[in-house]
């Protein structure tokens, strides 16, 4: 148990970061700290050998979420207004915490081999997934086949989120409320795209990020990874490009229409595999029905295709959400106090003419 002290250290850090996020009035700082919170969680998951979960947490929690928080702050304000302390809220939160604390009393001890979770379905997955599905990564077998319908549902959740963001931020009332306010050129903070080092590093990194995304997508059967993580990493490359060269530059490569199509296509691909299994004579998502003489071949094909669907939809939704946020005009805000920090303008720069990146310019 050499890693136990390390776990304790991570937990203490988590606690400290959590308290600071709660107390911080500067939302820009709070957003960055939530990224750190996610990163610490990812570290904990790794220590608990839940590598797939850690990977997702790092990519989604520490990566994309932070960017989306910043994009929101760029549209709103970065200082929280003073609000009255609500004793009712403090009471409810304390009660919830206490309940969770009491809930641990009758939990099986950590790592107890007799705990029910080691004797239920988990045991079946560990012992039989090699024979029944034939993939080295049991997590992928569970997510994409045993509980593949849940993953289909989760993909629909991501798709719904994409639809919801499009509906909300492009609706009549929303557009009415947000009138464009051009940022005066002289007072603006230096944009990222004017920083030569950032540009050079981003340029070098981009192909590797994309390649890594493809690797994660394809290698999910054998190691940690899969469609969700690959989709997020893939989207992260586009978002990084957008952060450095402005969102319009990304729109040149990936038009919004194409992304909206991709959002829908991934779900249809996943569901299509399920329906194809019906026609092959199985139940919904029964990949074994594709090759009745050799069920694990069908499983491999099915898992490959549904993971591809997941990757396409997830990456498209992430980039679409990023676009919708950054393409909105900055709304009029109440006047800020003197001395307050300028809002971060890392993302919302749609008003400026876009210089397309030229080869070798720095």
């Amino acid at each position: 148990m050499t890693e136990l002290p390390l776990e304790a250290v991570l937990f203490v850090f988590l606690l400290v970061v959590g308290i600071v996020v709660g107390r911080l009035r500067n939302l820009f700082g709070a957003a960055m700290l939530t990224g750190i919170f996610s990163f610490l969680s990812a570290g904990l998951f790794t220590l608990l050998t839940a590598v797939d979960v850690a990977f997702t947490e790092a990519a989604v929690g520490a990566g994309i979420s932070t960017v989306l928080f910043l994009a929101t702050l760029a549209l709103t304000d970065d200082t929280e207004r003073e609000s009255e302390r609500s004793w009712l809220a403090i009471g409810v939160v304390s009660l919830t915490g206490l309940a969770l604390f009491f809930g641990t009393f009758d939990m099986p001890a950590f790592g107890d081999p007799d705990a029910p979770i080691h004797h239920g379905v988990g045991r079946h997955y560990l012992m039989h997934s090699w024979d029944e599905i034939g993939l080295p990564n049991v997590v992928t077998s569970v997510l994409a086949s045993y509980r593949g319908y849940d993953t289909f549902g989760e993909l629909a959740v991501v798709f719904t989120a994409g639809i919801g963001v499009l509906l909300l931020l492009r609706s009549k009332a929303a557009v009415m409320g947000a009138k464009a306010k051009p940022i005066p050129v002289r007072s603006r903070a230096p944009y990222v795209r004017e920083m030569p080092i950032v540009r050079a590093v981003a340029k070098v990194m981009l192909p590797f990020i994309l390649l890594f995304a493809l690797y994660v997508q394809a290698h999910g059967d054998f190691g940690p990874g899969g469609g969700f993580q690959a989709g997020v990493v893939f989207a992260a490359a586009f978002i990084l490009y957008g952060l450095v060269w402005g969102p319009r530059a990304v729109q040149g490569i990936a038009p919004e229409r194409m992304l909206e199509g991709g959002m829908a296509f991934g779900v249809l691909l996943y569901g299509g595999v399920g329906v194809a299994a019906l026609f092959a004579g199985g139940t919904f998502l029964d990949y074994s029905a594709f090759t009745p003489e050799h069920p694990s071949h069908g499983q491999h094909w099915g898992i490959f295709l549904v993971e591809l669907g997941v990757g396409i939809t997830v990456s498209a939704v992430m980039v679409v959400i990023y676009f919708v946020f950054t393409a909105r005009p900055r709304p009029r805000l109440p006047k800020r106090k003197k001395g307050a920090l300028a809002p971060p303008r890392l993302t919302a720069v749609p008003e400026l003419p876009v210089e397309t990146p030229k080869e070798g310019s720095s």
Partner: protein
Amino acid sequence: MSGLKAHFPVLLVVVPLLTAPLLALIRQKQVARALALLSALATAVIGWGLVIAAREQVEPLSYHLGGWPPPIGIEYVVSQASAFVVAIVSSIAALGLLLGTRETRKEVTEGQQHLYYAAYLLCLAGLLGMAITGDAFNVFVFLEISSLSTYSLVAMGNRRRAFSAAFNYLILGTIGGTFVLIGIGLLYQVTGTLNVQDIAHRVQELEDVAPDSHNLTLLVAFVFMIVGLGLKLAVFPLHQWLPGAYAEAPAAVSAFLAGTATKVIYFQLLRTTVVFFGAAHVFGALRFGTHVLMPLSIAGMFIGSIAAIYQPTLKRMLAYSSVGQVGYLTLALSFGTEAGVQAGLLHLGAHAVTKAGLFCVVAAIVAGVGSNRIQRLNGLGKRMPIVAFAFVLGGVGLIGVPGTSGFVSKWALLQAAFASEHYLVAGLVLLSSLVAVVYVWRIVEVMYFQAPPVDEKTTHDNLAMVPALILLGASVLFGLFPDQVVELAADAAHQLFLEPGSLPPLPTGGHG
């Protein structure tokens, strides 16, 4: 055909779930509308097909998703109760879309309609998936689909206030969903399984081992699930999100949500108390029914109905009346008896049909008068006689006048109260119905006993009246000929109360 019929349980959910991305791809307003309606109608047909299939069977039908037998895979379970719920939900969704054809033209931004229909179908798929699944985690996944789409649908209302209503709902709904997830997680930790029947069986074993000392983890799991579902169901005092959400949403969405969303959550509450943790334990040892649920239900019944009297608009009035009606639903459950659950299921159906019908009538009124403020309704009985009559018909259904569905369900509720010797509670049910008379009479007075304005014009939207008349007609039909539905509800309640059996051993002998 028989081959297709075997896949009805999954097609029920997959048809709307896969039509939604198709709509997003098509982007064409007219085609999207037609396709959405077609898909919802097909879903409703499948829903009623499942009711017929469930009536023919003694045991619940099980559909193995991915070909994996439960508990290693996820199963869909067509029981009497789940078939009843999905049939009602899918029918109301189809009728809501029929209404939406006229409304959404005004309420959703041009070029966004295909996404609106996609969100509507996703919401439907989420609700149906929650009701028909036999897997605890799958409930959460589909709860998320329906919740996320509901938040964006509510925000489509044409006033800026719709955003704050949707935001309130988003925050409270997300807390509710998270609480449910924590509950499921803790349940998984003490049982090692996610299948509903399997969980019920193992929880019972745990409770049998030590009937006197409570397993704290199990107790906390129960509390979290109940609070989470209570938030989503708008049980008093967790109802704060409901009036705003129902009042600000587009007309079609109000009708759809009022008839379906809380109903599906109520079914989850039935399962959580009766099946997961066992009726004997929850209502016997924990005294959850008489000590927690009953006082809250009675408070909700009165506070919801009394608040409804003072609302300035029809939609807000109907929304507060819903808070009161949720009180009846949970009161029926709080007896902890089979008769109580039967009454609850009957009231679920009766209220779903009546309230959805009433919201459709409000849509027709808004189309005609241009507002749903109660003070603008003077003389509506003369200006729009059919619409006004339909509203009264729905209103007497809410009160529970004989001849309407509301009477059948309230009668069953009273019988259940008498059977479990809660005479005072039965009296309070009658008293709260009198409060409903007050808020319905208030509208009747304005519509029939005040002179119509001279200079105002009314436009008639006959299309909005089609779903309203179908729904209110169904309410009257059920009120006059209740036998079949009462029998169905009785069988459904009986099936829920059966002792959970252990699942058959896995073919590979996995549990060894």
